């Protein structure tokens, strides 16, 4: 089973809750710049990028990656394929 995160930037509200919680939970810091995901606030449609450092929160004891959990806009969706 291959896991990946699907991105739908047109649904992104640019709130950066994904970045903020990724950093808080994965790095223990209040520093969204350390997150493994970036929301670039372009207008009118933002851009979402994952950094190479993202391991889909495998090192955490969580069912779904933190960014997916906190995104309530369906801009990030966990896909399990294969």
């Amino acid at each position, binding site marked *: 089973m291959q896991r990946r995160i699907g991105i739908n930037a047109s649904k992104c509200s640019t*709130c950066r809750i994904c970045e903020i919680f990724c950093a808080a939970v994965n790095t223990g810091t*209040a520093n969204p710049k350390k997150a493994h995901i970036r929301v670039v606030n372009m207008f*009118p449609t933002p851009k979402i990028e994952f950094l190479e450092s993202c391991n889909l929160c495998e090192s955490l004891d969580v069912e779904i990656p933190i960014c997916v959990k906190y995104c309530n806009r369906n801009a990030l969706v966990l896909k399990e394929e294969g």
Partner: protein
Amino acid sequence: MQLGGYTDRNLLIDISNKSFKTIDWLKQKNDWLKFVGGRGFGAKIIWESTNADTDPLSPDSIITLNTGPLTGLPIPGAGRISMCAISPLTGIWADSSVGGAAGAEIKQCGYDSVIIKGRNKHPIYLHIHDEGVDFENAKHLWGKGSFETETIIKDELNNDARVLTIGPAGENLVLFACITTDYGRQAGRTGMGTILGSKNIKAIAINGTKDIPVTDLKKVVEITDEAIEFLLKNDPERYNIFTRHGTTMSLDWAQEVACLPTRNFQENVFEQSENINAESMEEKIKIADRGCYCCPLACGKLTKTKVNGEQVYVEGPEYETLALLGSNLGLGNLEAIAAANYLCDYYGLDTISTGGVIGFAIECAQRGLISLDGLKAEWGNTETIFNLIEKISYRKGLGKILAHGVKKAAETFGNGCQSLTMHVKGLEQSGYETRSLPGMSLAYGTSDMGAHHSRSTIVGWETRTDRFGITKEKVETQILLQHQRSLFDALGTCRFQWCECKLPFEFYPRYYVATTGIDADQDELLLGSERIFNLTRMINIRRGVSRKDDYPPERVFKEPLPSGSYKGKKMEREDYDRLLEMYYELRGWDKNGIPTKEKLAALGLR
């Protein structure tokens, strides 16, 4: 020891000689903590750095960008900045708060507050970062609109900076020019953009990478998990409606309870309200949701419309803009309201004051008191509205006078125009008509910045309970609201999760304790908010404010409502005086509205 929540440092920038320095305030920490943060820090700085004669547009004046202890943390809506200054529009205390994410960047640069003074000879923009400040040439940006400016600066800096910009209106010193960030969030009120314009600052880009100090991050995350669960489960219908429509959902409510400003506040119901309500927005122009920093509510609504035949995008209109540029101008066409919203954002004008000023001008012209530079004095006429927005922004023709706001414009026009102005203390009234709402009249009368609802929207409580009552309970509720709502601007986070989606207020003292490690309870934080409110009152008193200025616009007392469920109703002056006197007494202010020595001493202010 550094506690969480605060960086214990402010940044002082002098534009005149392009210098900056860090002010460490750790040794005076107890003095600062009394003012919580955000607008409280702004009040402390303005009180200490200005006087009765400070000209808001002189090089000596300062503008402060203040974060709060919660700013930048994993807390819904915690990206806020409270901008504080002496307003060029009103001449008194002003704070204008903005969402988006720029506040988090200030914190990540390692500062609580940024203080800017001086004036540069040439247009510049500031780039604030971890190591300090760069002063960049902005000659190529002067004259450009807010959105374009933001994009150019982001491209030039090629980093994650958040950018605060002004448009041509700020450059041209229109007294109600705003500051825009994140392509559509504004510090709209009181002319903050005018102050930047007077200093020749086109924009401020902020890009920090430092960790934000926090005592117990895990606890903050836990509280937010609990808060989100509460928001989703407690009243899912309310949550869903608010996230879907944002503040536009208030339009139907304002129409129903009869407080929707219509045709320069002459009426409080609008016959075309259904054309401009939340459902119409969704159906006709909305394309996406926009949320501020860390906020799942996403109350911002991105829309599309056309300006001069070209498709444009704009975040909004939200409730206030629907009311002031819509019903208040007799305009029942959503695409046109969104276009007017776009123009205001592009030029950098406060949509509330702009709607107030244009409504005032149209009514004056209809009554034959002024002429509109050949434009038709007709409600809902888009040619008139769009042209006046441009004339104001560039101070052309009639715009030269209207650029000063309704109070000063009426003084220039004379001819009885003053009785048609809708303002308190020189600030144009926001989106609630109050002839049938004594409490909301008092809210506007006693707000420390003029006729704005940020300090209290008692209209909600009032319409649910005792609409016409002149009671002590109403005044007590008013004072509590003024402290509760203002506290969010001190903490550096948004109030909508609480006031719109019913997240219990108790969450915020918990956030404060987890963030700062300071064992403060709700009462102590509210006492801090009261202290700030008294300090802003003292700033105003130093600048000549007293009881005479604590009244709603004359129309509220003189003209009975001509239509709607409360037809014939107006506010009785003696009823208002009773409310005001109760208010002063409960606040510990004398009969002229001046805080007593005992009150100030009890708050530790003198």
